[in-house]
């Protein structure tokens, strides 16, 4: 069903792996550069709460492991291979962000180890997601032979997509500024727009099997199971990212709700197009 691909485990040579590694670097640079050139990301490296940073990196590892499982480029069906893929992607992410940070003179001699490591660690997250995604996106037409879809897998992909897009904009000051400028009425409208947009994507991209369902059942089922569930995922991811970056500290719940709504918009977009991106 998944077709014979030349990258089946038995056919994998060191050369294939090297090619994949280069692709991974390409993906890492592609996914990481917008954040590398975002001012707030530089200061986050040393200002972020260390426990939150550690938790963030650990969750990133879990995310990579999951992505390796859902879309393992080597058709790696074992936990060992998935873990190797995840670690390799993380490694590529770290090396790529360190190299780019040096090239842009954002880390240099005279900075404390704390600051340098912090900067690399924060940037390594989007870079490693890019490394993982690139193997699929830039690789040979392997989009067909993904794992069989399960609902849990779809939810996971949505979370990954939401995290990636949310992470891309969450560090910027604009996110909280927009939240402060909006009235609650604007925010409610944005919630509705986010859900409708998410549903439009879900419906038009046709998450596997949805179009086969008879009658009107398909619409409401996909609305409930994918759009609403996906928006829930997007909201949770937004809240988590805001908390990670310390945006919620000392802020009243009402204002946090506004921020979550604002960040929920890119998150929902990320959840919707997760299939295409990660």
């Amino acid at each position: 069903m998944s077709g014979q691909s030349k990258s089946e485990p038995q056919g994998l040579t060191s050369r294939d792996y090297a090619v994949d590694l280069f692709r991974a670097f390409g993906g890492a640079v592609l996914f990481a550069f917008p954040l590398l050139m975002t001012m707030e990301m530089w200061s986050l490296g040393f200002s972020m709460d260390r426990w939150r940073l550690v938790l963030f990196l650990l969750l990133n590892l879990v995310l990579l492991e999951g992505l390796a499982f859902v879309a393992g480029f080597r058709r790696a069906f074992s936990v060992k291979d998935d873990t190797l893929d995840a670690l390799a992607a993380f490694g590529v992410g770290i090396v790529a962000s360190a190299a780019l940070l040096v090239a842009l003179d954002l880390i240099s001699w005279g900075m404390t180890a704390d600051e340098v490591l912090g900067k690399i660690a924060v940037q390594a997250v989007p870079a490693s997601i890019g490394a993982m995604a690139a193997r699929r996106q830039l690789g040979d037409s392997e989009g067909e032979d993904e794992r069989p879809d399960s609902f849990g897998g779809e939810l996971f992909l949505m979370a990954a997509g939401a995290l990636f897009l949310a992470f891309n904009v969450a560090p910027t000051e604009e996110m909280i500024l927009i939240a402060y400028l909006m009235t609650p009425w604007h925010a409610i409208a944005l919630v509705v727009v986010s859900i409708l947009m998410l549903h439009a994507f879900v419906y038009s991209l046709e998450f596997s099997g949805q179009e086969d369902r008879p009658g009107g059942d398909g619409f409401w089922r996909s609305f409930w199971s994918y759009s609403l569930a996906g928006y829930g995922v997007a909201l949770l991811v937004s809240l988590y990212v805001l908390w990670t970056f310390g945006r919620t500290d000392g802020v009243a719940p009402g204002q946090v709700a506004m921020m979550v709504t604002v960040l929920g918009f890119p998150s929902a977009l990320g959840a919707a197009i997760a299939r295409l991106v990660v």
Partner: protein
Amino acid sequence: MADVAADHGAEGESERTPLLEWVAGAIGAILTLTLIGVLGWQAWTNPGDVPPEVTVRLEEVLPAGAGFVARIAGVNASPETAAAVEVEGVLSRDGEVVETARATLDYVPGHSEKRGGLFFAEDPREGDLRLRALGYQEP
């Protein structure tokens, strides 16, 4: 692929929504309704165009280098967010001003607080330290 087979094969199977989908959808619905509820409550209780009310609270005084730092928190009692809030601490002893320190807080969101610090050469614990917000900008 198992999904596809089930869809085409067993007609009855596709009618039943798996439990996980119900649960995930329900969680999403609850989160969404909660969010809309909170936002709606804010919209309902929004008093309209009111100014921010920022007061400054002293958290603690710690030695910092050769001097001291007074850690402060700007507390906004109004629902309106204040930006670029300038806060000032005036240290006086026996009615005479010894030292003045200033800081700017980027944002103090409505009903929230943001922390900062004021540096003093003299110990602010000895004497009278008066803290206040000088002004703000609308975001």
